[in-house]
């Protein structure tokens, strides 16, 4: 028995040594050829899963590693799953930040990760460049600066396109509010009002997620005489709403939607798009297969069998920005030096976005403020470009 206890104690002590040894070597990242640990917290499983962002970031890092890494250091990329669950998101962030001692988080794509972990990142002074930020905290935290536009400014862009480019009046809104997102959507609508001086004629901010039948909400739109409606839907809900509108004969309404529905599956599932579905794509439209803007990204994704989606564009861009900034760091690559370099970085241009990316020293970040309009018309089953150039939110 005594022998057994001794054995256990010895193994325990050894593992403590090994563990502390590990964190010691990666922690400062300064040793010769020690890897740079980079993490990401993603929705990899659950009802809404988008694994492509972190897969795309990994493809970028693998390519960098294949050429010898950054200043001789290979990138060790850790992809964690938050399962769409707050507790799992918090645990994943603590694992990658405290145990793995990552220098930054890059290419995350999650529905709730920023909101759950934002304060923790500030406390640990670690920076995060999400590939696709969704919740409001992603755009409202000193340590987080996503590569994408985000659903809130995307709604401002969608409304701008509807009222200014398509010249639509009588615009309504159906908002599916999850958690504390209502003020952020309200601010996005107010921003549109501020720019155009126009107001929505009807707003329903109690539209449920995952409802089986949206007919009652569509009937309400009809009663208010909406000519166009902006919605912030997830794909299945949007399909339900379009089907209900079709059944109710509401075929002359223009749908001003968000990048959340910009996918090949969605276009295949839609037979009747009313007077047209318009989306300001947060990155250069990937459905435009011949475009030189997306060539680098497309080549890398195809080589790695990663689906061509907005999510993989976001992950690709986040990783590309990170590599470019970190390559410029003189001296040790640590959590502090990475944060400092990002806060002092020069803006980076990329053909896949309409405005240059900059992390910057501010308390909030949303450097991507341009969308590329795309449209889905009835019967075509495919997305088409709706403009020649980016639509940018005026300063």
């Amino acid at each position: 028995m005594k022998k057994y206890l001794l054995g256990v104690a010895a193994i325990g002590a050894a593992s403590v040594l090994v563990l502390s040894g590990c964190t010691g070597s990666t922690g400062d990242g300064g040793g010769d050829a020690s890897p740079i640990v980079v993490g990401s917290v993603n929705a990899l499983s659950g009802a809404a899963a988008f694994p492509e962002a972190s897969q795309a970031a990994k493809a970028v890092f693998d390519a960098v590693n294949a050429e010898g890494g950054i200043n001789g250091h290979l990138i060790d990329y850790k992809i964690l799953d938050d399962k769409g669950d707050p507790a799992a998101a918090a645990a994943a962030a603590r694992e990658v930040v405290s145990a793995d001692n990552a220098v930054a988080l890059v290419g995350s794509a999650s529905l709730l990760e920023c909101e759950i972990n934002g304060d923790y990142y500030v406390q640990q002074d670690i920076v995060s460049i999400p590939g696709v930020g969704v919740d409001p905290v992603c755009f409202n935290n000193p340590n987080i600066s996503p590569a994408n536009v985000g659903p809130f400014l995307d709604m401002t862009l969608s409304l701008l396109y509807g009222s200014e480019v398509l010249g639509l009046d009588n615009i309504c809104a159906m908002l599916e509010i999850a958690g504390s997102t209502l003020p952020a959507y309200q601010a996005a609508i107010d921003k549109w009002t501020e720019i155009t001086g126009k107001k929505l004629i009807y707003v329903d901010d109690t539209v449920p997620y995952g409802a089986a039948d949206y007919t009652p909400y569509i009937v309400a739109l009809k009663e208010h005489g909406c000519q166009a409606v902006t919605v912030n839907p997830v794909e299945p809900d949007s399909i339900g709403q379009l089907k209900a509108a079709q059944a109710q004969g509401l075929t002359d309404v223009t749908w001003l939607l968000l990048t959340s529905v910009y996918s090949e599956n969605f276009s295949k599932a839609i037979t009747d798009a009313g007077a047209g579905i318009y989306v300001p794509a947060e990155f250069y439209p990937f459905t435009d297969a011949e475009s030189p803007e997306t060539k680098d990204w497309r080549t890398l994704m195809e080589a790695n069998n990663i689906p061509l989606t907005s999510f993989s564009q976001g992950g690709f861009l986040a990783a590309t920005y990170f590599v470019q900034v970190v390559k410029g760091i003189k001296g040790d690559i640590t959590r502090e030096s990475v944060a400092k370099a990002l806060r002092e970085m020069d803006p980076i241009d990329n053909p896949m976005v309409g405005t240059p990316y900059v992390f910057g020293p501010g308390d909030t970040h949303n450097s991507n403020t341009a969308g590329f309009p795309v449209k889905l018309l009835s019967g075509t089953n495919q997305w088409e470009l709706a403009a020649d150039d980016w639509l940018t939110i005026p300063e």
Partner: protein
Amino acid sequence: MLQGALSGLAAGGVYAIIAVCLTLMSRLVRVVNFSQAATGMFGSYVAVWMVSHAGLPIWLATIAGILVGGLLSGIIGWIIATWLSEADTTTRSAVTVGPLLLLISLSFILFGNKPQPFQPLLAGPAFTVSGVVISQVTVAMVLLAIVVAVVSKVVLSRTTVGTQLRALSERPTTAELIGIPAKPLGVAVWAITGIISTIVIVIVAPSQSNDAIALSMLIVPAAAAALLGAFRRLDLAVIGGLVLGVIQGFVAQIDQVSFVRYFLPFLFIVGLLLWNQRKAVWDAAR
């Protein structure tokens, strides 16, 4: 107001049919089948997959999907009849949560979580009442709910099989002792309700939200509807489904009460339970 109420009729028809299935299951095989809508969802996903991947014509794929739904339900019924034949209703019902979760997960694994290209079997408006279009799907659902309830009633009260089924549900041991085949009859009830719920979901899925969770969770409002008939009366189950749908449509039009939209079925359930228990002495009810 009337418009809102009418707009909820489509959903109400679906709740009503699934509520009728739930009531049949509860009466005849002593189970509240939480996987009732999920088997229908899985069958309809199989049908969509057969159209989009195996290139089958839509009618053939639909029939195959409906059979898969019936078969799945039959298998769950066989498992319960084999290993839980003596268990009480609560245990048998709790077991069906397993297939519910299994089928949702399995559909994510097999078909992914992206939208499916459902093709409508019934499409277009049937008629218009005060500005609300009543679609063919709505008409079909309401009629189907009534037909299923009436046919079940007739079968149970006028045929030999119906008498046997009633004997099994009222006095299971006695029925088995006089030679009524309990297991095959039980499994048949499972398979038939599985087929009915798959037919319903195959018809409605193309005209509404059709992800795996939205379809499987139709069980919640349907259970609320079945509760109106205390899981015994088919007529009240149909009325419960239609009323719940109409109330949901009605509430969606009034901004002041919009906050109850999310949990209306639950309010319905709590209200009915309180009403049912109103005369119960507290200690006896517990």
